[in-house]
């Protein structure tokens, strides 16, 4: 009898454990890859609700998540250690959450797919990313400065600058340092390009080439978080964007002063 009771309790406990694990993993994946806090809260509450938890309490911050449901297990913490920009993962989590709400997958499948999603990252092929960096730089230089002759050199400099950023972020995981180095490389290449007669205006080339480095995700999320009332995470993202911008600015300023 005692054993039966224990088994009954442990299956309920397992279920609660699974709910917490699924919701926390979903939340962590979303924050790690650049989601705003309100969406994370919304998704996690939905998962808990759809899984049958009567109430759920959440505390979501940019560096960690705390979640409790009124069941057999206590509150659990999930730290958020790294932050990158991979918006596809957010879309996938969103999609899985919708499928779970429509009862197309069960909780165990949901959890397994999240763990799988967490372990693999499916970026666009490397050559396409390089091409994309070139195609952010060149067209924006033309749109901003109307300097058509410098289009090609801006594409090349922007692509090389982004390559420096990409390689450095792979080997030293400090984003601000990679941004600084990439900006410095862009400055040097722009000055050299004009010296060699490949371009007319150092200013225009640099303006176009730094555009792939613009911290678009932190800027947008910071505004959205502050508006939603997340007065801790919003300004934290704002600082992230500001430090990125300052790193790029210092990189450029250093080159302009020396060359």
């Amino acid at each position, binding site marked *: 009898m005692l054993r039966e009771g224990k088994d009954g309790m442990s299956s309920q406990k397992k279920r609660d454990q699974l709910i917490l694990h699924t919701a926390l993993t979903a939340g962590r994946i979303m924050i790690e890859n*650049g*989601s*705003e806090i309100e*969406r994370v809260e919304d998704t996690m509450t939905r998962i808990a609700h759809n899984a049958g938890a009567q109430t759920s309490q959440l505390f979501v911050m940019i560096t960690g998540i705390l979640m409790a449901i009124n069941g057999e297990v206590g509150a659990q913490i999930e730290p958020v250690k790294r932050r990158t*920009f*991979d*918006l*596809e993962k*957010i*879309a996938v989590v*969103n*999609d899985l959450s*919708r499928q779970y709400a429509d009862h197309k997958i069960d909780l165990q499948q949901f959890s397994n797919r999240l763990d799988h999603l967490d372990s693999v990252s499916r*970026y*666009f092929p490397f050559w*396409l*990313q390089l*091409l*994309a*960096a*070139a*195609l*952010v730089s060149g*067209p*924006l230089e*033309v*749109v*901003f*400065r*109307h300097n*058509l002759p410098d289009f090609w050199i801006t594409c090349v400099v922007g692509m090389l600058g*982004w390559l420096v950023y990409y390689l450095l972020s792979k080997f030293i995981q400090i984003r601000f340092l990679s941004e600084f180095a990439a900006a410095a490389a862009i400055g040097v290449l722009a000055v050299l390009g004009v010296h060699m007669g490949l371009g007319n205006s150092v*200013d225009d080339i*640099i*303006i176009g080439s*730094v*555009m*792939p480095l*613009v911290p*678009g*995700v932190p*800027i*947008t*999320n910071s*505004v*959205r978080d502050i*508006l939603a009332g997340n007065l801790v995470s919003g300004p934290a993202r704002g600082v992230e964007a500001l430090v990125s*911008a300052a790193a790029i*600015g210092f990189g*450029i*300023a*250093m080159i*302009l*002063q020396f060359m």
Partner: protein
Amino acid sequence: MTVVQFLVEVAGTYVATLAFGILINIPRRALNVGGWIGVLGYLLYRFTVLGGGGYVVGNLLGAVAIGVASLQAAKFKKMPMILFNIPAIVPLVPGGQAYQMVKNFALGQNDTAFNYLLQVVMISGAIAFGFLLSEVVNRVQRRVWRHRR
């Protein structure tokens, strides 16, 4: 602005928005719509400036348009809204002014630099405020929909 110039700007904005989307790994399904939302926001900004509305109002209107259009796209495609508005604000980013600010500070011309700093702050504020206004529109719309149901 001649017709050719106009077409070049539209094409440039579209390509740049789409390419930025690739850099932050936006799903393929969302790329095209995101590109057009970027064009919409940029054109609203551009025409406001050409019509004499000033760059602050232009950025404000552009940001409002991007915010509202992104929510419609998110509803239509059933995808998170940030997939559409993050690449779309890239053409509005005050890159030129920020660069001139850094350059003038580096060269010691602080008066000019402060001038540009003011512009950068005004434009960023206008974009943030534009997002706030679009959020108001979105919340009103959500409430109306809920009442209708």
